[in-house]
């Protein structure tokens, strides 16, 4: 079991002192620990994990470069208005729940409503500059559930709030590029053509302070019908207005020139499911009908198939980083991870904690843990 309450957290320097007082073995015999850490920080943590307990503790300490982990926004079948945040650590193969957001204001989300048939109402979140941001959802009175973004920082293990959104959304087009969050279109309390055409930008590096900046809007409300995962790619925010295989329109926002342009034909024709861009450089898409993962070739304006797998059928959302594509499966019942570096590409399944479904996955640095669990127990 992970001890993660603040009262038990011991700062690394003090912990070293305590360890020395109890004659704990050095990380590398012959070197003081702070020097051994310099050497070990050059090794992939999956190697360190397998050598001994002290090397295993090291990779979770806040003085050690944090390795990437999977973060999931989950919903629970038993408590249908609750939203949960978990992280899957691929080094120990262990799910950990995030500390809950502050209870004030309490986060109560409406997931299902008769007017939306069998689909869940959208919950929209994004990863930006090493933070997890929750931005749009629906509350029980069919109002927007969030008037300001909720931000989780894994390294500090804490939640904060972002600037007040001028028009809180039940859903929108949500994307990130170069450390800024972009919110376009969508619907707030009720439909408004102004909101449906709007674009707002929030720069987390704070050059304009803690505000949403109004940017050049869309020419009509065609992108307001659905929750949209907009994709930041090479200085553009790219999006389509209909999910899945149906005919759709695509558009790209140029962040430097503050203008909207058409999406290239080839890019649009291959956008038949969820899309993500690795390092905002290489775009990947899952064709939910063909169950195929493809990579976009910008020079040829064409998609190249990377792998085909039944497990990709009906995929709902993607995250891409560290040579891996994480996929929320159809219905949110599971998560697949594709290694796109190896040739041929390989796919693994990640089981969710029992009783949960995935609304979204993101890839972020792991949280520091004072005492990692010794066994991998799954909820």
């Amino acid at each position, binding site marked *: 079991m992970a001890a993660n309450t603040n009262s038990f957290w011991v700062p690394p320097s003090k912990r070293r002192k305590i360890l020395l007082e109890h004659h704990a073995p050095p990380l590398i*015999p012959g070197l003081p620990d702070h020097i051994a850490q310099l050497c070990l920080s050059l090794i992939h943590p999956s190697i360190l994990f397998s050598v001994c307990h002290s090397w295993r503790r090291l990779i979770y300490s806040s003085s050690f470069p944090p390795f990437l982990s999977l973060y999931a926004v989950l919903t629970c079948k038993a408590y249908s208005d609750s939203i949960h945040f978990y992280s899957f650590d691929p080094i120990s193969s262990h799910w950990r729940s995030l500390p809950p957001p502050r209870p004030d204001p309490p986060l109560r989300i409406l997931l299902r409503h008769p007017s939306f048939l069998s689909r869940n109402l959208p919950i929209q979140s994004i990863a930006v500059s090493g933070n997890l941001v929750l931005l749009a959802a629906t509350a029980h009175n069919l109002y927007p559930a969030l008037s300001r973004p909720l931000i989780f920082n894994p390294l500090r293990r804490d939640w904060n709030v972002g600037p007040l959104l001028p028009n809180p959304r039940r859903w929108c087009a949500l994307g990130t590029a170069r450390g800024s969050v972009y919110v376009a279109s969508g619907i707030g309390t009720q439909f408004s053509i102004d909101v449906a055409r709007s674009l707002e930008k929030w720069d987390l590096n704070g050059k304009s302070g803690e505000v949403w900046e109004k940017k050049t809007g869309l020419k009509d409300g065609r992108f307001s019908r659905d929750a949209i995962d907009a994709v930041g790619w090479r200085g553009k925010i790219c999006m389509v207005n209909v999910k899945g295989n149906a005919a759709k329109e695509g558009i790209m926002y140029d962040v430097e020139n503050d203008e909207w342009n058409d999406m290239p034909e080839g890019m649009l024709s291959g956008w038949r499911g969820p899309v993500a861009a690795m390092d905002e450089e290489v775009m990947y898409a899952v064709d939910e009908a063909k169950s195929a993962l493809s990579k976009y070739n910008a020079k040829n304006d064409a998609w190249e198939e990377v792998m085909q797998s039944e497990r990709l059928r009906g995929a709902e959302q993607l995250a891409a*980083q560290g040579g891996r594509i994480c996929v929320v499966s159809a219905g949110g019942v599971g998560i697949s991870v594709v290694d796109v570096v190896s040739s041929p590409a390989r796919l693994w399944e990640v089981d969710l904690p029992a009783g949960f479904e995935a609304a979204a996955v993101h890839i972020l640095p792991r949280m520091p843990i004072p005492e990692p669990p010794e066994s991998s127990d799954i909820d």
Partner: protein
Amino acid sequence: MASSSKTITVVSSDGDEFEMTMKAAEQSKLITHMLDEFGVSDKVPLYNVNSETMAKVMEYCKKHADHEAAKEEDGGAAIGAGGEEELKKWDDEFLKVENGLLFNIILAANYLEIKSLLDSSCQAVADMIKGKTPEQIREIFNIKNDFTPEEEAKLRSENEWAFQED
């Protein structure tokens, strides 16, 4: 700045004296700082470094000082395009020593604040670990295997698709 023909003397923990040029001494932030504070006429005591290690550090500082000087002459023509790569190869060979000495070099580089030597020597330790099995790693560094049999069994199935790190 003093001319490059000027030398200073450093003293190891074993009491041996080593002469180094100013340019070589500048490779070490600590020595540079001590010279600024106390002047160049006295011998600089480095009691944290033994003679065997000191000899290696002297060799490193001289090599890197010569490399820098050659870069400054001819606008770098003397070094050429492959110069940096050659220096790196020299560093790799230079660090092919047994663990005890390598660790002493790391400690000396840390103490003397020679960043490039600290970086290279730590990388040399990391390179010893890469590509090895956990058992081999433990053997190289004399580390006790403190996993239970259950924990060891789990190691095989864990951690199959971890993300790449930069």
